[in-house]
C-alpha cells in the first residue's frame, strides 16, 4: 500500500481541457472518493494514475516514486472499470486468476487457488467460479470484476463507479463490504462516483472536481459543513441544498449574490410565512416542499407532521451559506 500524489496534473483531449492543474495527495491507507458530474475529470484522473493515459503536464507519484514513463503493469495498480469489465472468453475463475498469472506477479498455483477462493467467498460468487463470464447477471459480473482487483495486493486500488450498475440492495451490501475490506487491509483506494451516499459512507476523504479542476479536498464532513463554493455545497446533501437570491432574507453580507440553505439551516416556526406545496413521506425522511416569495424550497420535517398542502409555515435561515456572483463562499 502506498501514498499517491498528483501535482499540477493537466490533460486535454483535443480542445477539451479534461484536467487542469490537479494537485492532491491520497494518504496511505485512505479511501478517497472523487465526486463530480459527468465530464468533471474523475475518470481521467483515475486513468492518469493507472497509466492508461499520460498527463500533458504535471507529475504523479505512487509511494514516492515518479510514475512518468511507466506502463500500467509497472505501476502496480488494480482497477475496476465501470463496464465491459470481464474477459468474455474466460470463466469466472480464469478471470480472477488472470492478474495473478501475469508475468509481473507469477503467483504459484497453490497461492492462486487460495486467493481466488478467498475473494470468491467474500464476494459470494464461489458457486459461479466455473461459469463463463458472459453467463452471469450484471451484479455478479461487477462482483467478479471487483474480485479481480481484490485478488491482488497493489499499491493502490482504482475504482471507476464500480457500483453504479447494480441494484439498490446489492449496492448497499457491497458498499459496506468494500469499506470493510479497505479498513481491514489498510488499502489505499481511489474511488470515482457521482453517488453522494457512496461518498459520505465510504470515504475518508472526498475530492470535488469541477470541469477538470479540484475545487475542494477534505473529509466528507468538512465538505458538507464547510463547502468552499456553491458547486461544492451542491455535491453533498439530500435533499440538495436550496439556492435562493441572497436578498430574499435580511442579513446578507456585502457582495452576496445567493444564499444556500441546507434543510438543517431552515428553522421552522419563526420568521416569515411560506406556503406548503406538498409533503412527501419517504419513510426515513419527510420532505416539505415550500414556496417562499415565489421561490421553491425543499426541507425536511418531523415524520409525524400535521402539515399538508396549502398550509402556512414560518421559516427563517439559521447560519446559512452565502455565495458571491462567481459562486465562491463568503465567510
Amino acid at each position, binding site marked *: 500500500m502506498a501514498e499517491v500524489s498528483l501535482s499540477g496534473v493537466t490533460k486535454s483531449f483535443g480542445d477539451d481541457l479534461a484536467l487542469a492543474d490537479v494537485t492532491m495527495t491520497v494518504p496511505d491507507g485512505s479511501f478517497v472518493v472523487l465526486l463530480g458530474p459527468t465530464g468533471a475529470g474523475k475518470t481521467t484522473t483515475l486513468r492518469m494514475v493507472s497509466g*492508461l493515459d499520460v498527463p500533458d503536464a504535471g507529475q504523479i507519484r505512487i509511494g514516492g516514486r515518479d510514475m512518468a514513463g511507466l506502463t500500467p503493469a509497472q505501476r502496480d495498480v488494480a482497477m475496476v472499470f465501470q463496464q465491459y469489465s470481464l*474477459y468474455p472468453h474466460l470463466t469466472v475463475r480464469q478471470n480472477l486468476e488472470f492478474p495473478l498469472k*501475469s508475468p509481473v506477479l507469477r503467483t504459484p498455483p497453490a497461492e492462486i487457488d487460495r486467493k481466488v477462493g478467498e475473494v470468491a467467498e467474500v464476494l459470494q460468487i464461489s458457486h459461479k467460479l466455473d461459469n463463463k463470464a458472459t453467463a452471469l447477471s450484471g451484479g455478479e459480473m461487477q462482483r467478479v470484476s471487483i474480485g479481480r482487483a481484490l485478488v491482488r495486493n497493489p499499491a493502490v486500488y482504482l475504482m471507476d463507479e464500480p457500483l453504479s450498475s447494480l441494484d439498490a440492495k446489492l449496492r448497499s451490501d457491497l458498499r459496506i463490504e468494500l469499506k470493510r475490506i479497505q479498513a481491514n487491509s489498510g488499502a489505499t483506494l481511489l474511488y470515482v462516483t457521482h453517488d453522494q451516499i457512496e461518498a459520505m459512507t465510504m470515504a475518508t476523504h472526498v475530492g470535488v472536481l469541477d470541469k477538470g479542476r479540484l475545487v475542494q479536498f477534505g473529509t466528507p464532513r468538512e465538505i458538507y459543513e464547510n463547502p468552499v463554493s456553491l458547486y461544492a455545497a451542491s455535491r453533498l446533501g439530500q435533499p440538495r441544498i436550496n439556492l435562493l437570491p441572497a436578498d430574499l432574507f435580511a442579513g446578507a453580507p456585502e457582495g452576496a449574490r445567493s444564499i444556500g440553505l441546507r434543510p438543517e439551516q431552515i428553522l421552522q416556526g419563526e420568521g416569515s410565512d411560506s406556503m406548503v406545496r406538498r409533503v412527501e413521506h419517504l419513510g426515513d425522511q419527510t420532505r416539505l416542499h415550500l414556496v417562499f416569495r415565489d421561490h421553491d424550497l425543499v426541507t425536511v420535517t418531523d415524520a409525524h407532521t400535521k402539515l399538508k398542502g396549502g398550509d402556512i409555515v414560518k421559516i427563517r435561515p439559521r447560519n446559512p451559506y452565502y455565495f458571491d456572483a462567481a459562486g465562491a463562499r463568503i465567510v
Partner: protein
Amino acid sequence: MSFSVTEPNPATKWLAGLLVVGYAVITLIPLLWIIATGFKSPTDSIAYPPVVLFEPTLEGYVNLFTDRTRATEQMLAEAGPPQTWYDEIARARGTVISGPSRYGERFLNSVIIGFGSTALCMILGTAAAYAFSRFRVPLKDDLLFFILSTRMMPPIAVAIPIFLMFRNLGLNDTHIGMILLYTAVNLSLSVWLLKGFIDEIPVEYEEAALIDGYTRFQAFYKVVLPQAATGIASTAIFCLIFAWNEYAFAVLLTSGTAQTAPPFIPNIIGVNGKDWPAVAAGATIFLVPVMVFTVLLRKHLLRGITFGAVRK
C-alpha cells in the same frame, strides 16, 4: 407485454421454405452435375439428351491421377493380366498406365499456396487492423483508403508489371512468389474486414489486461485475439476462396513447380481428347478442401457475416 417480432404464420413459413429450397436446388444442380459427371463413362458424359441415371465408373478418377499410353494387342498380351483394379480400367480402353499424373503435385501446390497465403494474410491483416483500430497512426484515413484502393481495379490489370517484376526477382513459378502475390491481393480486404471486427471489441478489455500486469502484446494475444477469432475465421474463408480459385495469375506466372490445380485441370482436356469425366473428377476433388474448411468454420462464418449488423 408486447413483442416487436411477430411469429410468421404457417403459410408464409412454407412459402419462405419453398423459395429457399428452390433457390438451393437451382444453385446446387451444376455442382451435382459435376460430381455426377466424374463418375460417368466418357460416352455418358457427352450423351445427348443428357443421362441422369448411369452406371457409375471410376474411370474419370483413374484417368485424372494417371498417365496412360495406348497399347497394341501384342503389348497387352506381353504385359500379362492386370495387377490392380485401376490397371483393369485402363486395359478396358486399350491403354496401359505409364505412371502417376501431375494432378497430385498440382493439388498439393494449391494447398501450400492457398493455405500459406491465407495464413500470411491473417497474420499481417490482424496486426495491421489492430494498429489501425487502436493506435493513433499518422495519416490513418489516407492509409486505409490507399489499402482499399489496391482492390479498386481487377488484380489481373497489373499482371504484366507483376510478371516482369517476378521475372527479375526470380519469383516466377515459385511457391513463395504465389503466396506473396495472393497475400498482397487479399490483404486490403482482410485489413478492412478485420478492422471492423476489432473495432467492435471494447478497448476496456485490453486496458484491464494492461493493468492486470500484461504488456500490450500479451494483452493483444490473450484478450483481443480470442475475441477476434470469429472475424479472423470468416476473413480467412474469404481469402482462402480467392487464393484457391484464382486462375489468371496462376496461368500466367506458374507452369511447372508451383502450378496450382486450376490451370492444370483444363490441361487434362488436351491430353487424350476431351476427357470430361477426368476434368469433372479433378473439379470435384478440388472442391473438397474449401468445403471442409468452410464447414469446420461455419459457426464462426455465420456469426461473422451477421456480426456488427446491429447498431447498438
